[in-house]
């Protein structure tokens, strides 16, 4: 709940500013404010104050609290009165709007999916002129001067100009940074604002997952100048805004799954010294993030393929536990003479599943269900499954057997695996025969429409002749409706009664 609300809020503020605040949003903010912040080491922090500001978790907590509760609520209050942050109707901003339409629509989509009530935002955006929020973070608004805002707008204008003139790509992003560094060689005036502007532009330039871009950005800060000379400077956050900027930069890296390396550390050390808060954050990141990087036992490629078929294959391979599963890519155009639509179907079915279909009694229906969401990294798709009612007889038999084995009078009366009737006594169930249903196949289609799924079933009938005689029921849910919990009325409840 908290995370959802937090994400929603962050998005709202970033993209729409205070303009779209209405009752619904306020209600959700209340929820956020009422929900206690619970990072992992909440108790540790409370109990052992002596370790304050030293452990990674606590620093996370600091940020979380600052960002999400007090600052947000304070900002909200401010905004309601005077809108101090957002409303800057300078000519540059208006220009920016027109060039930035794509990212706005993308925001709209993500916002609507996150909140679930897209109408409110649409209305709000339509009724107000589109204003891009400042890239300066709002965790300490009083410190932000008008001068700083001006510098920030200037920095963004640089990025905008280069993006429109030379296109938004990695080389142009680096070019923009070099432009800044070459112009302001001595004092690096406005480095902080430039970095914040750069951070917010990264996605547009497509470099938000690129470590070299972050390295280039951190080099905007001047070397040596900000290194603390004594303990007091260290503890009282020498150059606090610059350090906070560095921390924000690394926070963004963290969120885009970019792990710094040794070079990044050297760059940071040359600018902030080895004891500053920002360098400490770097060290904590270097302690944890490489560990997290390889934690997933089912690794996902860092860059997802663009081809939807490859993507679908990747997702199905991840979902199918049977090693023998066969994956087929079918083009509806090639398959049928007059297809309802031109799309692809990626089908996953193993020989065991085919055998299960051939053993299925044709009188009983099979079901096609979906679409269900499946995500890999930041990409989502929808899949469908073909399933049958669970193999209650075998499941019951197995369960009874297990219970029989538990009984005292059957102690040591087991049947050894090398004896003849071993398999008759112990039915071996395949991995597809689960308690809630027997899964007979999976597919992802290009359009996730009913007609494409029907085409899949027609294709399956070729390799599963039994399927043609079996009634197949399509239980499809519309993509926008919430996912229901399926199946308490299914036969596997009988198993629980035992």
């Amino acid at each position, binding site marked *: 709940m908290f995370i959802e609300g937090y994400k929603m809020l962050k998005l709202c503020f970033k993209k729409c500013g205070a303009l779209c605040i209405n009752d619904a949003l306020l209600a959700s903010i209340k929820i956020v404010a009422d929900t206690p912040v619970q990072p992992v080491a909440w108790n540790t922090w409370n109990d052992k104050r002596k370790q304050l500001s030293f452990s990674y978790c606590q620093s996370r907590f600091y940020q979380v609290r600052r960002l999400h509760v007090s600052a947000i609520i304070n900002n909200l209050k401010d905004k309601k009165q005077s809108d101090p942050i957002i409303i800057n109707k300078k000519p540059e901003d208006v220009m920016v709007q027109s060039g930035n339409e794509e990212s706005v629509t993308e925001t709209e989509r993500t916002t609507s999916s996150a909140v679930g009530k897209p109408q409110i935002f649409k209305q709000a955006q339509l009724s107000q002129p589109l204003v891009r929020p400042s890239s300066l973070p709002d965790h300490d608004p009083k410190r932000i001067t008008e001068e700083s805002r001006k510098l920030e707008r200037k920095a963004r204008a640089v990025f905008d100009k280069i993006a429109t003139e030379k296109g938004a790509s990695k080389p142009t992003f680096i070019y923009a940074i070099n432009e800044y560094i070459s112009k302001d060689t001595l004092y690096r005036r406005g480095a902080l604002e430039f970095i914040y502007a750069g951070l917010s532009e990264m996605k547009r330039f497509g470099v938000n997952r690129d470590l070299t871009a972050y390295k280039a950005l951190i080099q905007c800060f001047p070397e040596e100048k900000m290194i603390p000379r004594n303990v007091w400077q260290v503890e009282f956050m020498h150059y606090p805004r610059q350090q906070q900027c560095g921390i924000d930069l690394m926070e963004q890296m963290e969120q885009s799954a970019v*792990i*710094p*390396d*040794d070079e990044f550390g050297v760059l940071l050390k040359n600018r902030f010294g080895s004891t500053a808060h920002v360098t400490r954050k770097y060290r904590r990141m*270097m302690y944890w993030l*490489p560990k997290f*990087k*390889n934690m997933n*036992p089912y690794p996902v490629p860092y860059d997802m393929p663009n081809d939807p078929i490859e993507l679908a294959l990747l997702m199905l391979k991840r979902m199918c536990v049977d090693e023998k599963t066969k994956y087929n890519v079918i083009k509806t155009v090639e398959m049928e003479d007059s297809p309802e639509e031109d799309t692809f179907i990626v089908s996953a079915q193993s020989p065991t599943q085919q055998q299960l279909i051939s053993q299925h009694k044709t009188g009983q229906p099979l079901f096609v269900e979906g679409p269900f969401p499946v995500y890999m990294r930041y990409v989502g798709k929808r899949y469908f499954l073909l399933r049958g009612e669970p193999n209650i007889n075998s499941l019951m038999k197995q369960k009874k057997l297990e219970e029989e*084995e*538990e009984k*005292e009078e*059957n*102690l*040591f*009366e*087991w049947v*050894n*695996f*090398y004896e*003849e009737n*071993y*398999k*008759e006594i112990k039915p071996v169930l395949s991995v597809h025969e689960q308690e809630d249903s027997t899964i007979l196949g999976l597919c992802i289609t290009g359009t996730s429409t009913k007609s494409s799924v029907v085409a899949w079933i027609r294709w399956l009938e070729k390799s599963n002749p039994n399927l043609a005689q079996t009634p197949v029921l399509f239980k499809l849910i519309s993509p926008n409706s919430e996912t229901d919990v399926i199946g308490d009325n299914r036969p596997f409840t009988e198993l629980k009664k035992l």
Partner: protein
Amino acid sequence: MLTSRKLVHCACSCSQQQNIVRLIYKQKSLAVSCVAQRRCLSSPPNSDLSKGSVNTPTNQPPESDGLGTYVKKEKLPKLTEPIAKNFFLGKLDPRFLVYPQLSKDELDQLNELIAPIEKFFNSVDSKSIDVNAKIPDDVLQQLKDLGLFGLQIPEQYGGLNLNAAGYARVGEVTGRDGSIAVTLAAHQAIGFKALLLAGTEEQKQKYLPRLATGEQVAAFCLTEPSSGSDVSSIQTKAVLSEDGKTWHLTGSKIWISNGGIADVFTVFAKTEVKTPEGETQDKITAFFVERAFGGVTNGKPEDKLGIRGSNTTEVYFDNTPVPAENVIGDVGGGFKIAMRVLNSGRFSMGSSGAGVLKALITMTAEHARTRSQFGQKLSTYGLIQEKFAKMATTAYAMESMAYLTTGVLDTYDDPDMSVEAAIVKIFSSEGCWVCVSECLQVMGGLGYMKDYPYERYLRDSRIMQIFEGTNEILRLFVALQGLQHAGKSTKELLKKLRNPLNNPGLLFKTMWKKSKGQSVMVSKAQSLNEDVHPELEQEAKMLAAGIYSMSGAVEDILSQFGNKVVNEQMKLRRIADIAIDLYAMTSCIGRASRSYCIGLRNADHEVLLTRSFCYEAEQRIKRNIYELTPAKMAEREIDDTNRQIAETIFKNGGYAAQHPLARNW
């Protein structure tokens, strides 16, 4: 056996007057169950073996013409208590410490039989058999002439009618050439064994005479592409014709030894059988199929690592018609026949392995005695001496186990020695592999060259761990058979142990006993040292202690896991290893004690061999017990660690650790 026992006690107890009384008393009670082994090779001394007289041993009138002549018993006694399975209960019947022996007549005849075979095998060119991957026809013919194709076939069908001991002894010689040994074993140890065990009189009369002479060669067709160790999953089908007179066999079998040269096949196939409830079930049935029936073809010989001279092919049956009278046993009873055949053939691997090893030790010792390095002979170096000692110890244990098993097989009426046979097979196949490798090591670079036979023996011996039931399956077999026997025998106690809250008294007793390292099942260790020569007292105590600690481990494991013990394969492996060591110790101690008492040449050497083996075995047992004990396991959980490692490997599809040079950022 009776005589041996007398000798044992006469020899060993002269200095211990007190003991004698007790021992003689014991001996009386045992005498009932002890019979001299005179089952096979049992034609009277004057009858000519080579003529193959048709006298059946049972029909022969006993020679009861007065005093001093031994009167043979009509029937063999039943084996009432199992040997290895009883280790699981912490018991060993001391009578099995009396090492079995053949009667003098039997031994003489056997030696008479062995002499020409040995002579022949000295002249066999094993190297060319290995290189050409074929046994020459004239060699095969000579083997047939020596009667090696019908060793265990009764005389009335023209065989040599060897008993288990005799068969094992011949195996010792034939084992010197792996290819020939496997060809012979595929023919008679499994090929037509089903006919001997379960065939009708007509079937025997029809086929056995020609099989005994080698006119027809047999093969055993069980393994299929989809079913290796899992026998019950075979796919070959047999369908009965409508008139009920002919079966039609269809299917393919792989890795069939003698598949290309065999004329008759024991084939296992699925047939439909009606159960009493009226359902039809697919059950395995054994068929005896002649190649002449038609529809039998075979693939080309497989190119193998070792035993290259033996003929291994695929065999295909395409609608082969088999007359109904060629069904072996009952329709649907094939599985039991297959198991009986496989179980009955395994014991001989111990003696053939030992035969190979003894020959190799002789050759290697010759090298060690003659080759000088750094100015001294190899034989003077400690590391070489240690190797020879280990090899001799292993060979000694292998032999002892094999002939103890054959002794019991010959003394009793159809005893169930499947667990013991499996133990012999596991121990000797692994011992052979290790020791042949050590022989090669002693030879150094020479051993690695193809000019010397060591690398061939190494390749040949590798198959022993794989065929006739892999060692892994057999270990599970040994452990599960034993555990089930123990569990059923002490069910009531174990039920209480599994439910400690309802039996608080027992709980405290268990805790008390465990704290002293004792088991609840058995009150105290047996004293086996009174049944062997005092020279082996320590070893007998080790054996008794081992058996006792095994009962403790079994009790723990059974009360902890109950029926779920079948899934604890790593623990089962340890239990099986303990049983193997105990059986080996039993046979070594028994044999050394006998040799020492009757004063065989180098009997003191045998005692040393036993001593060395028992020391090693005790160490292994202790280690296994340590790893089995739950309290210790809680600290280590080595099984769990290994399971997790394996799971990660399978999940990653291979070796999962990153390269040592890999970086994470």
